[in-house]
């Protein structure tokens, strides 16, 4: 195999037809600036049209194309072939989620948990206008950074606590909860804190930082979860209102 080609082992599985998943191997010519997304598109467009995967924006903003690429959850669009340092790539669906077909996973469990933390903002009734907050206020800076989540599910696929406990809310949902609990404009912060303070909420996180390691937006959900734990305790003692 020449250096101008890449060997892609792609996970194939149709839960309604196949007893066992299999790997199909394709050899693909490498192009300039080739992302893994280009690899799966090449296979689907020109080699095996039955391949299934999900993609939308193709530039790292929508979080639709998370896959398990050479042993790590990543966005296919933002993983350059050249960055893998090998001419062989194994592409599998994101772990911890049901498979619709091949590389396309069913994100429903992820979003069901997202909904459980009441992910929507409920403004305080007295706030009639956009609040005046200086951009250098410490707390706001930390929230703003954590708001960049694109719900791609990489963290969810990497989290070993999600892997062992299917009820665990997971890093993304808890991170979202934190951004609302820390948002002083919101009026149901205590209610939300109670929703995440349950057994299958923040307490299942054991600070392994798997989520932070794979987050394509460089967020650190572990940090958000720690902040939530702290606030749960404060709330218990009546310090958080």
């Amino acid at each position, binding site marked *: 195999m020449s250096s101008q080609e890449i060997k892609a082992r792609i996970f194939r599985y149709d839960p309604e037809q196949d007893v066992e998943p299999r790997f199909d191997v394709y050899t693909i010519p490498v192009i300039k*600036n080739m*992302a893994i997304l280009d690899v799966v598109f090449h296979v689907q467009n*020109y080699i095996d*049209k039955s391949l299934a995967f*999900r993609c939308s924006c193709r530039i790292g903003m929508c979080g639709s194309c998370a896959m398990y690429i050479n042993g790590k959850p990543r966005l296919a669009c933002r993983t350059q072939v050249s960055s893998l340092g090998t001419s062989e790539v194994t592409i599998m669906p994101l772990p911890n989620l049901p498979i619709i*077909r091949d590389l396309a996973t069913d994100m429903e469990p992820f979003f069901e948990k997202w909904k459980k933390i009441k992910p929507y*903002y409920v403004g305080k009734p007295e*706030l009639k206008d*956009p609040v005046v907050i200086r951009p250098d206020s410490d707390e706001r800076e930390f929230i703003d950074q954590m708001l960049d989540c694109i719900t791609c599910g990489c963290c969810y696929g990497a989290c070993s606590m999600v892997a062992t406990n299917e009820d665990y809310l997971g890093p993304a949902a808890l991170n979202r909860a934190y951004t609302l609990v820390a948002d002083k404009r919101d009026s149901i912060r205590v209610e939300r804190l109670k929703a995440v303070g349950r057994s299958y909420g923040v307490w299942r996180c054991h600070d392994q930082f798997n989520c932070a390691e794979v987050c394509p937006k460089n967020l650190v959900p572990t940090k958000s979860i720690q902040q939530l734990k702290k606030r749960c305790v404060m709330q218990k003692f009546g310090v958080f209102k």
Partner: protein
Amino acid sequence: MEEIKTDVLILGSGGAGLFAALHVYDNNPGLDVILATKGLIGKCGCSRMVQGGMNVVLNSADSVDKHFMDTIKGGGYINDQELAYTLVSDAPKAVHELEVKVGCFFDRAENGEIHQKAFAGQSFDRTVHVADLSGIQIIARLTDQVFRRQDRIKVLEETRGLDLLTTAEGDRVVGAVLADMRTGELIVVNAKVVIVATGGASSMYKISAPSVDKTGDGMAMCFRAGAEFCDMEMMQFHPTGLLAGQSRLSGSVLEEGLRGAGGYLINGLGERFMERYDPERMERSTRDRVARAGYMEIMAGRGTESGGVYLVMGHLGSEFVEKKFPGMCDRVRDVGKELSKEPVEISPTSHFMMGGVKIDRDCQASLKGLVVAGEDSSGVHGANRLGGNGIGESVTFGRRAGDTAAALAEQELLRPFRQEQVEEIKQRWLKFFKPTTGVDIYPIRDEIKNLMWEKVGVVREAKKLQEAISRLNGMYEEAQKAYVTNRTLRRFNMEWNEIMNTINWITVARMVANSALLRKESRGSHYRSDCKTDNENWLKNIYMKKKGEFEIETDIRPIISTRFSMEEIRKLNVQY
């Protein structure tokens, strides 16, 4: 086949679709809403991909009249002035609602008020934003609000619209046939009102900016249903699309704020070429002019080796660029370049359709029961859209579409759909599973992209447009003979999806090319190398609708100039 009855059916989950859903619910929580989206909710389409931000008048030194004038000036003065005025006067309300009710948090200035940054083509710094990736937050928060109202808003993900259902008279829309792409099953939705908000079809060009799933489905559906369109020739090319060879990354937009902040555009010879095209505004000129300038430099042989020009940010200081444009720096790093330090190769990229379904201020289209909002509609932006007015249109008109739909749904009865029409639609889209051999859709798809780029692109001429039209007609016939390789596989079949995309692309492309041939002048983003600007005869809009099975009926009517008269426009005599 599953049948669902509902009050309001919304197609699309971008800014317009999501906001419409919220407004239907908030107007009347008793109404049932079905929100069908081609990808995952809030993830597909382009609102999510908005980078720069949204234009809105918030400062007392600014005014909606100034914003209005900027909008029609940028739009080559053929905007529907009522729609343009609606955009600018609704925008502050929309931003207020996004902050106070939806929970967005836009970047703040030093004094703690919402920060407004500089965008091209505007007389005031009025673009609100969240760093340089604003769409993520706007759409994520709107999606969360839809989740909050899930008792009435039923979301169907990875469910694309196939065609609208109409009454026998053909003057009213009564629902749509959808396809659940996960199962491959069709669904009939019978609705009092249908809101179409699926976005444009700019992806039909070789170098293009939109998400891969946005293929003009809504427009094509509306065309087949017989709705009236306007100014379809008006295709915006964004001047700063990233060049990344054959990779899908190519064409993605490097945001307008880069030019707003003082970035330079330089050709292969190292010249700041905007001096030749708009010496006054230079890089901060409107998108149509900057894109055309870049294109002409490339065509004149003054481009880079891979057919682009350079965007240079380094002179602004790498720390400043990294801080203000982290998302852009990241993206450019994916292609192995440092935006804050070195020149980056760019090219004009097909970006946005100003043309679309003709609507009134309440988003009502020419067919009863059909409400259209966002990029699928026309008139707001005229011949060229200002950066920052795109998400503005999505959210302001999305709100209005929701209000209109709620009012209509309260008044109207649910009218029955026609079973024979459902059968016809079913046959139209499932026939590709029948043949054992036929046309491979992918080469056709690739050909459209090249054809549109070369013949209906940044610079146009009659001969090439005619060639494009005849080829598009031929391709339409060929695409009908396409087949799905794996005949028994309906679930998550991307090939079937692409066949449908391709047919929709061709449907929209035909309107674009025909309209471009009709407008025998240059204006805004429509530049004809064989015709000059004609302010005497061409302060007009081109209307189109379907005639017979697939023919196009056209009508040319004077612009809607209720606020800034044609005499005043003629006096300015702007040349493009």
